[in-house]
């Protein structure tokens, strides 16, 4: 009896796997490489939400696979190549550090399409995509300047790369549009995710007189510290309101779903081509979490700014932009700084009282 049961089970498994293979053969295979574990918030989680949205939309035509917690060193090239060898035809690599490995694998497999997030190297079969998060930072800067009683913002920086620096500058320009004398204190933690360090940085910033915490790191630790001390804070990447129901003002929410769906549709239609996508509020590459814990007039201002940026009427880096040294920055994009200047930003705007690390 036992034996018969076992062989029946084996047959079932076998049948299942054969059916699975046959079924998978006519579906487009789409792969994802994740930097962190998926968890339930943060950078990787938002990409996972994007993948889930993709599956919901096109699940009957595609099969998705992901590899999580792939370090940015030599392991990533292997991980990407493993996805190629498993038959994936479109592969999203979702962290800056995968840039060169993605390019190497892309050159080796010209018939597979690659999409690299937040990088700047492209090829015939390798696109890049990213978000204009500085737009959200500008709104946050305005809110912060309105809400701060001390006139001092605390900013937790991850790494001094252009994306983070343009975020600080956009925040500052937004804040200065409300209060020209606003001050910002910056602590660099040199990590994207380290709740201990982030909490320590938040405490130090509050101790130094800041009363609003902003972060470019991934964990809700800073939000929790702000909540404990009765101060205000902004979330990052994900909705963090449950960590500070009375503290969160808003949060920049990465929403990759629409982009993933569009790109996979293009792949299915055979219209995929290498592109450089840098989406802003207008293309829904990210969204702002509900404006909470602020008076109605501040909320109204934030919504108006958001609408103006979305409509293209307001550009956070509208010329003239004055650098930290008091000199005007060369304006290469007509009325605003050129995209290249923002993508490679390595200067502070006037009023940031900090020295850029490594400069």
């Amino acid at each position, binding site marked *: 009896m036992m034996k018969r049961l076992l062989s029946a089970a084996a047959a079932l498994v076998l049948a299942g796997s054969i059916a699975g293979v046959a079924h998978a053969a006519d579906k487009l295979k789409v792969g994802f490489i994740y930097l962190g574990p998926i968890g339930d918030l943060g950078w990787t989680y938002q990409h996972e939400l994007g993948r889930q949205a993709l599956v919901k939309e096109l699940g009957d035509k595609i099969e998705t696979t992901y590899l999580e917690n792939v370090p940015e060193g030599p392991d990533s090239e292997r991980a990407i190549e493993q*996805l190629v060898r498993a038959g994936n035809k479109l592969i999203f690599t979702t962290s800056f550090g995968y840039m060169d490995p993605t390019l190497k694998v892309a050159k080796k497999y010209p018939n597979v399409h690659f999409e690299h997030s937040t990088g700047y190297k492209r090829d015939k079969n390798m696109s890049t995509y990213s978000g204009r998060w500085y737009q959200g930072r500008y709104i946050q800067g305005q809110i912060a300047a309105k809400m701060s009683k001390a006139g001092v913002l605390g900013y937790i920086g991850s790494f001094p790369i252009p994306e983070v620096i343009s975020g600080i500058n956009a925040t500052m320009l937004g804040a200065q549009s409300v209060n020209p004398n606003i001050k910002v204190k910056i602590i660099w933690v040199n990590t994207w995710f380290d709740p201990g360090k982030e909490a320590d940085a938040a405490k130090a910033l509050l101790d130094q007189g800041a009363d609003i915490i902003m972060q470019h790191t991934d964990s809700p630790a800073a939000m929790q510290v702000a909540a404990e001390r009765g101060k205000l804070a902004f979330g990052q990447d994900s909705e963090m309101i449950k960590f500070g129901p009375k503290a969160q003002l808003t949060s920049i929410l990465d929403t990759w779903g629409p982009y993933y769906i569009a790109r996979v549709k293009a792949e299915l239609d055979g219209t995929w081509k290498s592109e450089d996508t840098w989406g802003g509020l207008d293309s829904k590459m990210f969204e702002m979490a509900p404006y909470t814990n602020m008076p109605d007039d501040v909320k109204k201002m934030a919504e108006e700014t958001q609408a103006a940026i979305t409509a293209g009427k307001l550009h956070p880096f509208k010329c003239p932009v004055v650098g930290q040294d008091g000199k005007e920055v060369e304006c290469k994009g007509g009325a605003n700084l050129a995209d290249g200047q923002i993508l490679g930003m390595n200067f502070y705007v006037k009023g940031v009282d900090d020295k850029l690390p490594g400069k």
Partner: protein
Amino acid sequence: MQLVLEKRAERSRTIALISPLIAIGLTLVTMSVLFAVLGKNPITALGVYFIAPLTDSYSLQEIAVKATPLVMIAIGLSLCYLANAWNIGAEGQFLIGAVAGSWIAVKTQGTEAGHWVLPAMLVAGAVAGALYALIPALCRVKFGASEILTSLMLVYVADLILDYLVRGPWRDPAGFNFPTTAEFDPVATVPVLIEGGRLHLGSIIALVVVACAFVLLDRTIKGFEIRVVGVAPRAARFGGFNSNQLVLLTFAVSGALAGLAGIIEVAGPIGHLQPGISPGYGFTAIIVAFLGRLNPVGILIAGLFLALTFIGGEQAQITMKIPLDVTKVFQGILLFYVLACDSLILYRFKLVFASRQVQSGAG
């Protein structure tokens, strides 16, 4: 009735040989149960983990690539541990070696420099790793500072030095301010052995290192000294062996190997210097060293086996959608069983009956 561990009068050689096999067997059984609970066919899953990666040249190459730094570092560490010198900072020596070698690559970039560049880089990496490892060794010998602490703390120093260099002076001018050097020139790159693959010269070097360590420990007086100092420090003193000198020597050698592994990794699979060049190789190598019982051949096997679980784990994620956490659980279980079974070499189980129990008031 009670189950107690009783010390054996002597080490059991039979158990010493079959203990790793018992450990692997128990791991397989436990994993099968785990896979079944997850609703996956255990046989298929184990096949994907252990057999599939061994069946094609690509995966075999990747196993070698992954094992290369682990084996090289672990060999050095085993010499230290045998001599009772506790180098925990191989990760730092790895990074410093990578930095020192990259210095030559960065300085010669775009020049007419010839084929001396790569050998010079490898030497620089090894020398820098050795010097960096000598810091904690000297602190122990001269001041009695715990080398466990100092070597570990120097890891963070090395990490920050690397970080500073790639964000500041060595940053790729065309790299949009991102923290990485430019790609190394071809003369500064470790050659690939098979066209189209990633297997590189470093794997051959690792094999040479294993062979050298084997000869050193098995055939030379120095090797004998190392083992005596570790097992019986008093006897070693009476024998006239200088344990301080051995601490310095083993630290220098293990630092050199870690540094060499670092520059090979950077000039090989990565191709440029950047933060995060090591996913914790220096620490994983400690596990490899002990899994291989501090024996060069054992370390080679352990390194390859651990690499196999990484590659297999990835394939399991892709083909069977088994979460990465399961791979980690798997590695943890394996280590647990290996250590648990090792205790059987020195101890044996014995049933003690309640009537003979003397200390009954303890509870």
